[in-house]
């Protein structure tokens, strides 16, 4: 059978003039010519260079820090230690009010993570910092800081950290259980439970039950631009920061809190950002450089090495997940039970709650219970990573769902359709879904040429998995100003990680009825726009786009009023559509957008519009992935032969960049599934902290990634947008595992599924199938 392969499909319900087209992104020319200024490209006269002094131990008491030799270095301008950070207390019990970043962090822990006092709790943790005339001098001087440690036993794995006799990281962590303090000290910071129906009764009704335990390795976001920043504590006591980050306001606020200064003393000017994926929401060097800058009286610049970035900035948790599900013989899932334990890194606050929300979310399960544990280990504090928590949780549940389908001899997509969550389906956390597009995603893939094509070759097999992610709304502000030539300046506070200048401008253009090229977007500093939560949670095109729509409506109304004033008619009689303004029945009074703009300055001045939103109608995201793999039974190596991902975008504003999100997420999910992991030494140090040894997929490891954009409008957005940035990372590990069960007959319970773990699993099964 031959079919023509259509790599990218868009299943549109509604067409618009600008939305759904594929203009060149406004920042494109800068980014293909090398002109675009990223964080490390920023320069300011008089800058000196910072370097963090980091702990060689994963867990140790700090006995003493002697900075005298570093201070004596001829090029050194300033040295600081953790003692220089003010012991600010915010809130009655000293806690930082939740939450400024994507993941909540207690202020005292955030401060300690940034520069430790008393003890260190993860490898490469900063304990001091130096600033010198050149970057090489700073590096040299950092080595002159003498730190004496008393080494403590460390624990870097979640299950080991939960043991009663595990080394304890913090003596002030007391487990909270179901919202109550228990008095139990140790590494478990929190235990929560969500329950719906009667799981025990549910399992009694089941004809088939599958239960498995899964362990996944710690992975990193792996953005290509390491963390870097320049900070100037100026003589007027304002602290200027230039960095690349996902959340300029999030980092402004957190830096101010750590330094104990008023929020607006800090001004953050975001530079172009070289990827984030959730890992650039929290301050790392910013407060330290501020202290160095204050001491030295000069701007201080610093960029991390890849090793510092990998070991000491937020990875995504390693986890233990147990999933048990039961179904009747006619294919109805009747009960689920899950237990999730996630690494929080060295301080409490992992993404286990999100994982707990995701684990059963794609299905209508009447009886289910989910237990989650937040556990500290001697690794860098976990940060968000693209649908944080979803990949760990849904790797487990999608494997079990697949095995149920196999045991019941039902097609895997069909089985999911029979149980798919729909509008009104209640999740385990008690909330129910508004209109969602899971059924449409599943149907698009069931009908896809990839799913129907024959599977050919030895040890070649096909796997399927789907996933849910909740997406975020939160605050965004946009300002518009009409220029007298009819082009419109747009200011926003959302760093553009992957084409959002385009997707936001296009929404404003659609409302104003002008081409998207006539919108001139700028991402501005925190003094120049209203509070905008960071670029994350798949929220930017949704929420900042929403703000752009509101601002454009504001402009449109003022354009109508201005035309009415010029014509001497009532504003109610004036209309504006597709960029033309007209009044009267026979439309004898008419002007184009540009003609009105040209008269604007002489008829009352520039027209400006504003939009500020905190939208509640966040549209949940669903994606499904078909993969064909070849698995080598001799070596355990898995090669991806073909991949097709479908996702509900609600409405794809710029389909090319939506496809890009689907493809990029799939690639990261494949890396997570097959290769990526932190190797921890017995001493608790990351042993593979380089891109040579932390192996992310290259062009050679991947095939083309075909996409289907499904559009089930989100009722919570004027154009129906759902965020598209994250859910796509979650299906690959399970889809690959499900393919492996059909290729080599093994059910994988460990990530990554590298040749080692695949062979070990095969040997453990004596080469025989433990699948069905």
């Amino acid at each position, binding site marked *: 059978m031959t079919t023509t392969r259509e790599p990218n499909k868009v299943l549109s319900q509604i067409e618009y003039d600008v939305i759904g087209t*594929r203009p060149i992104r406004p920042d494109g020319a800068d*980014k*293909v010519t090398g002109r675009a200024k990223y964080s*490390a490209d920023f320069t300011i006269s008089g800058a000196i260079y910072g370097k963090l002094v980091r702990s060689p131990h994963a867990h140790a008491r700090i006995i003493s820090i002697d900075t005298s030799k570093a201070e004596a270095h001829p090029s050194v301008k300033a040295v600081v230690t953790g003692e220089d950070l003010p012991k600010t207390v915010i809130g009655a019990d000293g806690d930082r009010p939740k939450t400024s970043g994507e993941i909540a962090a207690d202020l005292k822990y955030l401060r300690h993570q940034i520069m430790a006092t008393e003890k260190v709790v993860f490898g490469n943790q900063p304990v001091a910092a130096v600033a010198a005339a050149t970057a090489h001098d700073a590096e040299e001087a950092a080595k002159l800081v003498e730190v004496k440690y008393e080494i403590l036993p460390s624990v870097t794995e979640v299950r080991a950290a939960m043991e009663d006799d595990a080394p304890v990281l913090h003596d002030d962590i007391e487990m909270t259980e179901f919202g109550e303090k228990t008095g139990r000290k140790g590494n478990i910071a929190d235990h929560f439970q969500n329950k719906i129906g009667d799981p025990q009764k549910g399992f009694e009704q089941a004809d088939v039950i599958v239960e498995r335990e899964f362990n996944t390795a710690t992975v990193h976001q792996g*953005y290509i631009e390491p963390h870097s920043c320049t900070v100037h504590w100026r003589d007027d006591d304002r602290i200027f920061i230039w960095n690349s980050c996902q959340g300029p306001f999030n980092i402004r606020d957190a830096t101010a809190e750590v330094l104990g200064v008023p929020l607006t003393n800090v001004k953050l000017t975001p530079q172009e950002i070289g*990827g984030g994926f959730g890992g650039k929401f929290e301050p790392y060097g910013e407060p330290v450089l501020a202290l160095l800058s204050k001491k030295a009286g000069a701007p201080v610049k610093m960029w991390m090495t890849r090793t510092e970035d990998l070991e000491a900035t937020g990875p995504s948790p390693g986890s233990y997940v147990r999933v048990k599900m039961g179904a009747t013989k006619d294919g109805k899932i009747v009960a689920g039970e899950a237990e999730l334990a996630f690494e929080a890194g060295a301080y409490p606050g992992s993404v286990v709650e999100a994982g707990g929300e995701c684990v059963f979310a794609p299905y209508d399960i009447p009886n289910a219970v989910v237990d989650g544990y937040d556990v500290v280990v001697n690794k860098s504090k976990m940060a968000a990573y693209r649908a944080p928590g979803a990949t760990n949780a849904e790797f487990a549940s999608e494997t079990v769902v697949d095995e149920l389908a196999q045991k019941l001899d039902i097609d895997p997509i069909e089985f999911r359709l029979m149980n798919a969550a729909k509008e009104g389906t209640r999740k385990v956390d008690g909330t129910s879904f508004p209109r969602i597009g899971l059924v449409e995603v599943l149907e698009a893939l069931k009908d896809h040429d990839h799913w129907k094509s024959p599977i050919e070759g030895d040890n070649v097999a096909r796997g399927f998995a789907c996933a849910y992610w909740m997406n975020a709304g939160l605050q965004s502000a946009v300002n518009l100003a009409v220029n007298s030539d009819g082009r419109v300046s747009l200011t926003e506070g959302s760093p553009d990680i992957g084409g959002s200048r385009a997707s936001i401008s296009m929404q404003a253009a659609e409302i104003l009825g002008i081409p998207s090229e006539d919108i001139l977007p700028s991402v501005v500093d925190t003094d120049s726009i209203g509070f905008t939560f960071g670029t994350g949670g798949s929220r930017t095109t949704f929420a900042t786009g929403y703000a752009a729509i509101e601002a454009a409506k504001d402009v449109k109304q003022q354009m109508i009023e201005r035309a009415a004033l010029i014509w001497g008619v009532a504003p109610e009689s004036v209309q504006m559509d597709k960029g033309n303004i007209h009044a009267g029945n026979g439309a004898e009074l008419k002007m184009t957008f540009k003609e009105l703009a040209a008269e604007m300055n002489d008829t009352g001045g520039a027209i400006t519009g504003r939009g500020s939103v905190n939208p509640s109608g966040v549209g949940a995201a669903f994606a499904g992935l078909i993969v064909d793999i070849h698995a080598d039974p001799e070596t355990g190596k898995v090669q991806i032969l073909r991949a097709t991902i479908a996702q509900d975008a609600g409405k794809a504003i710029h389909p090319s960049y939506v496809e890009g999100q689907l493809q990029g997420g799939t690639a990261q999910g494949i890396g997570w599934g097959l290769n990526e992991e932190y190797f921890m030494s017995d001493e608790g140090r990351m042993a593979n902290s380089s891109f040579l040894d932390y192996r992310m997929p290259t062009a050679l490891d991947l095939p083309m990634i075909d996409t289907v954009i499904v559009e089930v409008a989100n009722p919570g957005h004027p154009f129906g947008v759902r965020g598209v940035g994250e859910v796509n990372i979650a299906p690959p590990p399970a889809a690959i595992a499900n393919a492996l069960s059909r290729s080599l007959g093994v059910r994988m319970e460990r990530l990554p599924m590298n040749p080692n773990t695949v062979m070990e699993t095969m040997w453990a099964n004596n080469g025989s199938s433990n699948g069905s």
Partner: protein
Amino acid sequence: MPTKSYVQTNINGESVEFLAEPRQSLLEVLRDTLQLTGAKEGCNDGNCGACTVKMDGRIVCSCLVFGVEAEGADIETIEGMASPEGLHPLQTAFLENAALQCGICTPGFLMASKALLDHNPNPTEGQIRWWLANNLCRCTGYDKIVRAVMDAAQKMQA
């Protein structure tokens, strides 16, 4: 402080002089001394390709070359890719095919892709993937990058 050496080199067709410490990489010299910040530092150990430039006809990771090794060399960087007539067809193809998201890897991919097309004007998908395997992109999954290179190759042949 180590003494600096005087280096005379050619960058994007212009004669350029600079002083460099022996420990400074070509990448550092380009970025910090010459303000040619189009080449990026992603790893500083030859594993990401963000710092890719062309040196005497070969693509190199400029983080693995010492600044002093540039003596007498012919170096091409991303800053020299567009001409007064406009963008190079590869640059246009990257824009039209949405082959960049964050864009930090883009200069490296463009330099490597240009070297590929100079050497093989009509590469297959597999040849493109093999050639670009030295360059990491964490955003795109490579699909649109590979398509952009094929698109540019086609347009350059026409």
